[in-house]
Every structure is written in structure tokens, then in C-alpha cells.
């Protein structure tokens, strides 16, 4: 079975685990489960699954160097650019990377963003969820890229991810630290960072609206120069001689 289906299954499982089930207190599963724990294990498994997927598709030093460099850039943008609360240039870069280089690279860049920057900012229980959230932003961006959707979609997508990132981070927070787990507590937890997420979304929209096309062009120019060979792209290296 393709590893990506496993990834997809895991993502689905997490969504059900942290979003859907606990919100229905009558479900008997709730009595048995510790949702905070479950969500953590599943997020970690997803990351591991993508690590394995990347191992399968990364062919050479080129892909490895590129994905790590994009991850570094994105991580670095998270560190000194915290001057504007909520506005995160790294989300923008993760989205552009996923758009150009496909879902697996997108996930890896997103995951690197959180993992690497936290060596500097401080790791915490949030690390796997940040990796998961940004990784997912990269994966989904790949589909925008695959259908060649334009600027308007990028902006909408950026706004959506501004909020979705918040939703994922809050869901973790909610499942772990809020009691009882009901729809009502969920809604309130989700709204606590509304202000922050709105800034994130606006930031994404401006970044993607003004510079999305340009950044994608830069990455795309590079991809062509590089004979990028990841994930079902035709590897068009002209043979020597």
C-alpha cells in the first residue's frame, strides 16, 4: 500500500479524534479515551509516516539539499520576524514550497519549519502539532499547485490556513487542557486566538496576494534548473553523451 494513503488515513483519524468525537459526549469511546494523548500519538505518527514517504521519494542529494534549505529559510523567517504579532512569513513560504514542489516536499518543509525553529525558540508539547499544522499547509498547497490555481485562490487559501493553523493548535490545547470536552468548550477555545489568527490570515493574504506569484516563479525557475525529481514528476535529466 502506498505510504501516502497511510498518511491520509492518519490525518483523518486525527481529525476525528480531536475534532469530532469528543464533541459528542454520549459516544462511549469518550469514557475510555484520553484525547490529549491520542491526538499527540496520532500527530507524531503522521509526521513519522511522512518521514518514511520522503525517504521513498527523495532520490538524491538535490532533493535533500533543497528541502532542507527551504525548511531552514522558513524556520529562520519565524525567528527574527516576530515583530508583527501573528504575521508569519513562514506559512507563506511553506505554501509556496508545497505549491511548486509537491505534497511530500511541502509537508517536510512545513515540519522542518516548526522542528528546526524550536531548537532556537524552545521545544514544547506544541512542537508535533506545529509540525503537523504547517506540514498539512504544505501538503494541501500542493493541490492548489497541481490544478494551477491562480492568485485569488492563493489568497483564499492563505486566509484559510491562517485560521486553520489556529484551529489545529487550539484543538490540541482544548483536548489536553480543557475540561469537559464539549462542543461549547471547543467553540470558546477556538475563539480565544481569533484576533491572533486574523492577523495571521491577513498576513498570509497580503504575502500571497502581493508576492505569491513572484515567489512561486522564483521557486519554479529553480525547479527547472534543478531537474527536480520528487514525487511523480518526470525526471527529465537528459542523458549524457
Amino acid at each position, binding site marked *: 500500500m502506498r505510504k501516502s494513503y497511510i498518511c491520509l488515513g492518519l490525518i483523518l483519524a486525527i481529525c476525528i479524534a480531536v475534532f469530532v468525537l469528543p464533541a459528542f459526549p454520549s459516544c462511549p469511546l469518550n469514557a475510555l479515551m484520553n484525547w490529549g494523548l491520542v491526538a499527540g500519538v496520532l500527530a507524531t505518527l503522521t509526521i513519522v509516516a511522512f518521514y518514511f514517504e520522503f525517504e521513498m521519494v527523495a532520490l538524491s542529494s538535490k532533493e535533500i539539499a533543497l528541502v532542507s534549505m527551504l525548511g531552514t529559510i522558513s524556520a529562520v523567517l519565524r525567528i527574527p520576524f516576530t515583530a508583527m504579532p501573528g504575521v508569519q512569513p513562514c506559512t507563506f513560504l511553506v505554501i509556496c514550497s508545497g505549491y511548486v514542489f509537491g505534497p511530500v516536499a511541502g509537508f517536510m518543509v512545513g515540519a522542518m519549519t516548526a522542528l528546526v525553529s524550536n531548537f532556537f525558540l524552545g521545544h514544547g508539547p506544541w512542537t508535533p502539532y506545529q509540525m503537523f499544522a504547517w506540514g498539512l499547509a504544505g501538503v494541501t498547497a500542493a493541490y492548489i499547485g497541481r490544478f494551477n490555481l491562480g492568485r485569488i485562490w492563493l489568497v483564499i487559501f492563505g486566509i484559510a490556513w491562517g485560521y486553520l493553523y489556529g484551529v489545529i493548535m487550539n484543538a490540541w490545547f482544548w483536548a489536553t487542557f480543557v475540561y469537559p470536552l464539549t462542543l461549547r468548550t471547543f467553540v470558546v477555545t477556538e475563539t480565544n486566538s481569533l484576533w491572533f489568527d486574523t492577523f495571521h490570515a491577513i498576513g498570509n493574504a497580503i504575502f500571497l496576494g502581493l508576492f505569491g506569484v513572484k515567489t512561486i516563479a522564483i521557486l519554479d525557475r529553480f525547479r527547472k534548473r534543478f*531537474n527536480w525529481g520528487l514525487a511523480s514528476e518526470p525526471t527529465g535529466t*537528459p542523458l549524457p*553523451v
Partner: protein
Amino acid sequence: MIRMDSLTFCYSGASIPALKDINLEIGDGEFVLVTGPSGGGKSTLCRCLNGLIPHFHGGRITGRVEVGGLDVIKHPTKELATTVGMVFQDPENQLVAMDVEREIAFGLENLAFPRDVIAKRIEESLDTLGISSLRYRPLHELSGGEKQKVAIASILALHPDIVVLDEPTSELDPKGAEEVLSIVERLNDELGITVVLIEHRLDRVIHLVDRVIVMHEGRAIADGGARDIFDNGEIADIGVGIPPIIKLVQKLKQKGVSLDNIPLTVKEGRVMLEKVFRERGRKTLPQDERVKGKPIIEIENLWHVYPQGLTALKNVSLRICEGEFVAIMGRNASGKSTLVKHVNGLLKPTKGRVRVAGIDTREATIAEMAQRVGYVFQNPNDHLFADTVQEEVAFTLKNLGYRGREIASRVDEMLERFNLKEYSRQYPRSLSGGERQRVALASVLVAHPQVLILDEPTRGMEYRLKSELMQFLEEYRDRGNTVILVTHDVETVAEHADRVILLGEGRVVVDGSKRDVLSQALLFSPQVNRLVQAFEKYGVPGDILTADEALDLLI
């Protein structure tokens, strides 16, 4: 043993081949220097030796390359790793691990050596390069020279027969460069490794090598011993930077002075030219006194302490006038960059005062200072972000609050002056290195600053671009502006600057005219001055700095 038979290579997407019909043979244990102007095919040639071409960079290749009995076209780079080791230009980009030990282990691990062999090889290569004290140090704390040594160690650990170095010193300061080159010499001399070195600063290496290959437009236009190569004057015309002593001897020969050989070191030069100087060198040179304008930069008792607690400048007082061409020199971390960053307000004094054109930098923003002080950084790529050259240049004016027609006319003027008109709609990053440098300059000078600061502009720059840049700076200065050049490049300073300020440990050590500072100095003397110092007993003026001055004296 390296053999190339009618090798032609064309990068994919390029219309002109980067290498044309190369036939070469390099024997075991040879020390070969590859030089020539940029874009001549030096790097391409070297990348053919370990199979990066054609396996990594796609393209069309014809002919044959054989290295140590292996056909490069059939064997990818990773199989050639134990035969050919490659050291690259920027040490930063070839190190992949976090500390020195792991870095050296990386290649060995890839080749699946057992642990005990790796341990032995690490020990060996650390000792050979004399860097065992760095073993557990994180790489990002090392200096450029140290990093480059680690890169060489990591290659050496694979026990290659051939080491190829692609401009290994161009990102380093003179001390680092010297250390790296002496190591390279030892590799060849003591370990018998074949060395292929790309370098454009010939004065550093010319006496070490057995053979020189000059690449120009994809062809090897000259190939032979160093003395033979420089005997014909043609290679100077294609933009190879000839060391000043050799230049002097070449010119003397052209003027009919009979000299039977080309000197490769200062010592050889002294022996060879002693007679010439004894007979003719008694003239005095006309003193070139420049009229100074009124002071434009006034620095009074400047101290700077960085937030981490490092005191970078200690009580510096300076006065720089309009129309001066000042070079600021000194070791790494002697405070050069810190000092000039105060002039345009990037840094503010911890104590003391900096005034430029009467404005106290503490009371002005960097943007306000940008109207008066232009600052060009080493890497032009750091300047470039816009889609077209025109936008790039206009950006500075927009920042400074100019609007509409004013912008258009000033940008046009700049593009005209820097010969960039034809590229105005092009993407700046697709231009060549020299053109990018001009765009960076234009983007700073469009604000019409009275002071221009350049931080290490010539590091790693080939000869032709360097002289182009210097010519421009002199023009700019002649219009009454001030140029401040931060540099390690003694020869450039000797030729173009008026005044030299030498910093050490954050203090001004010497400040005076270039003749006073650069002549009779040990480390900071240009080649020709070191030559002339020996002839003072014959009445030769001791403050001659450049080949042209020496020539004026002798002819």
C-alpha cells in the same frame, strides 16, 4: 593521471558550449593552476574531473575524460569520490554537519567504512591539517579559513589521489587564504597528491605551481610552466590579473630592457632587477598632492559596544574630507565594518559622536542618512530583489520619498552611466556577476550620496571587474565625493586610494597617506614596495607602491 580527449560540454539549455575541444593530460603528483577570466570555463573543467559534469549538471558531452583509469562519463560522482576530492569556493556551503568531527566522518560514512577505520582517518586528517584542536567545535563558530580547512580535511579523509580546489580562497581574508594555500602546497609536496587549483589571485600561488592552464571562452588558450605563460603578453589582454612584479618585468622587457626570465617571487625579482635599479633608479618621483575639500565625516571619540558585550571600537577619532579616497584596513574583527556602519547610521555610537555633512547620526534615521551616504555590500546579490533592473534602482528613490518623474529621470541617468540601459527590463539576478555589481552600485548611487562606502567589494572578484569598479570609483571621487573602501586588498589600495587607516583591536593604529602607511610595512606592503625596499641603498625612493610607478622611475 587525468586525460581529456577532445572534450566538449554544453549545459542543458545553453546554446554555446562551456568547454570546447579540450585536450589535456595531467600527470600524477603535478600541481596545476587553472586560471582565466570568469565565464571562461574554469569551474566547468574542474567539475568534469569528478563527474559532477555530466552526472549532476545535465547537458551534452562529447569526448572522453579519464581520471585514474576510470571513465568519468560512465562513473558517477559518488563512485569517483575516493579518486577525486573536490573543495569548493564557499566553505559555508560544503559543510553539512554540526561539528568538525561529524563533518569529516560524513564522506566516510557514506562509503560505509567501519567505525574503527573512520576513527583512524579522522585522526589522520585532523593532524595533517593541524586542526585537531577544532575537533568538537560547532562549525558555525569557526572562521572562514578554519571552515575551509575542515572542508579539505573532510576530502582528505577519503584518501583521494587527486584534489581539485575551485577558488578555495576567494571568500577568505588574506591570513586564512595564506594558511589554506600552504596546506594545499603540503598536500602536493609531502603527500604527493595531484592538485588542480583554480585561482585568480595569481600572486598568492604562482610560485607554488608546476604548470598553469589559462581558460578563456571554453578553450585552454595557454598551458605550460608559469614563466613561459607570462612570457607572452597576450594573457593580460583577456583579463588575467598579472602579479605586479611580473607586470613590471613584462613592461620593462617591452621597453627593451634585457631580462632573461620572469620572476615568480619577490626574492627572484630582487635578484633579477638589482642591476636595473642600481643603474637607473635614482630619480625622485613627483609628489601627487591632492587638494582636500572641507571635512564631511567627523568622528569624535567614538566607542561602540555590541549588545553581547564586545567592545568593537575604542575611542576612535577621525576626520575625512570631501574628495578623499580612504582605505580602511586591518585584521578580521578589528572593527572595520563596525566603524563604517556608524557613518551611515546602521550602528549608533555607544559613546562619542559621528557627524556626516553636519548631521549627527544619532538624530537621523538610516533612511535620512541614505541620501548622503551610500553603502555597497560585498555581495551584490544581497541587494537584488526586484523583477527588473529598473525597479531595483527605483526602489531606493521610492524609499527616500521621491515620486514620479524625478524617479524616472534619475533612474535613467543611472542606467545610462552604468551601461545598463539594454538590461533595464531584465531580471537582475539573471545578469552576469559584473553586471549585477553595477546594478547594486546604481541602486545605491541613484540617491546621489556624497559619501560612498564599499565593504570588501573586491573579495573574490576577478581582475577585469576590479579595475572597472576602481575606475568608476576614481571618477566618482574626482567629482568631489568621498570614497571609503574597507578592504584587505593591498594592491588595490596601493593603486587607487589616497589615505589608509589601519585599525587594530578597535583602535586606529595608523592613519596617513598611503605612501607612509604602505611602504616599509611588513604585512601591508604591496609586492613592488617589498621589492624596492631592498634597493634603497641605491637611492631608490622607498615609497614606490605600484608597478607603474616603478616603471616611471626606471624608464
